[in-house]
């Protein structure tokens, strides 16, 4: 429990077994990005009032706390606990690999991270899922649209990573 890293195969098997349990006991697949979207809807509602709920997207995806939102809250708590147990918790603005390639200016890192986050949020909703919902849950059910989406995640990701680290 206090080891910093576990074998990727044990971790993968653990996530696979976790997906059995959520299908069996919660009648739901593992997924994250819908909960992020609902949080965005709840923030919009808090800032701009209940008329936000009339937007077509928020009518189809009610901005409220639901099962998946609880899952994501648990995810954060579990990640904090694991980091504390292994003694790796540390506030950090810039990851080591970024600092080595692009220096220690926090604003540069934040600008690229923010742009990436916006594209992720936008793209996850357009494609109806993320690396968890399509990449793991959809793929393990052998759903063709999920396999296609997962391939696109990595094609886009590899292209952007090579542009960032190898070209510019």
């Amino acid at each position, binding site marked *: 429990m206090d080891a910093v890293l576990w074998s990727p195969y044990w971790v993968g098997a653990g996530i696979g077994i976790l997906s059995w349990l959520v299908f069996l006991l919660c009648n739901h697949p593992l997924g994250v990005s819908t909960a992020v979207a609902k949080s*965005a809807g709840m923030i919009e509602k808090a800032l701009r009032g209940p008329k936000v709920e009339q937007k077509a997207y928020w009518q189809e995806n009610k901005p409220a706390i639901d099962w998946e939102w609880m899952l994501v809250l648990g995810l954060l708590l579990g990640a904090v606990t694991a980091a504390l147990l292994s003694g790796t918790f540390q506030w950090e603005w810039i990851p080591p690999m970024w600092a080595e390639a692009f220096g220690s200016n926090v604003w540069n890192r934040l600008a690229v991270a923010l742009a990436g986050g916006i594209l992720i949020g936008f*793209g996850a909703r357009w494609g109806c899922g993320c690396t968890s919902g399509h990449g793991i849950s959809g793929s*393990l059910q052998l759903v063709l649209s999920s396999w296609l989406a997962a391939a696109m995640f990595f094609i886009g990701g590899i292209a952007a990573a090579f542009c960032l680290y190898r070209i510019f």
Partner: protein
Amino acid sequence: MAGKINLSNGPRYLLGLLFGFCFGFLLQKGGVTRYDIIMRQLLLEDFTVLKIIFTAIAVGMVGVYGMKQAGWIELHKKQGSLGTSVPGPLIFGIGFGLLGYCPGTGIGAVGHGALDALVGGVVGMLIGCSLYAAVYPKLKGTVLNKGNFGDKTLIDVLPVRSPWAVIVPVVLLIAAMLWSIEAAGF
């Protein structure tokens, strides 16, 4: 044969919190909440991410289809079309390469104190979701339905009588791929 389990919302939410806790714990212990490990996967230098995802898919698939056959669960498949499953995920992918975290691993990264994942990543994702909600009515009647192929699975499109005729070869292919990655020294 046991029937399907239907919990009321209270225990179901509590289990969601507990399973989320396990998920975040595993992501953190797997190292995939680390920017460097995700970025090195996208640069094809480290294959931790691929090993975790494909092991989860293989293990998950066997149990989920086994439980479906026993009548314990229903599948939860998402509808897809060329108009949703290509452009959206490509945009997501570019964002993934810029941020260096996906939604789950980004929130998991906040768990070890990564402030770029919180202030850049999570805030950006929330903005991106709201932007999508704003343009959704324009996309809905046009691009989203292009090339609709529904929720078909690989089992549906292959001429097999039993789902295991697909599952077993897929699991073996995944095992062979992971073995090759190890054999190649990654």
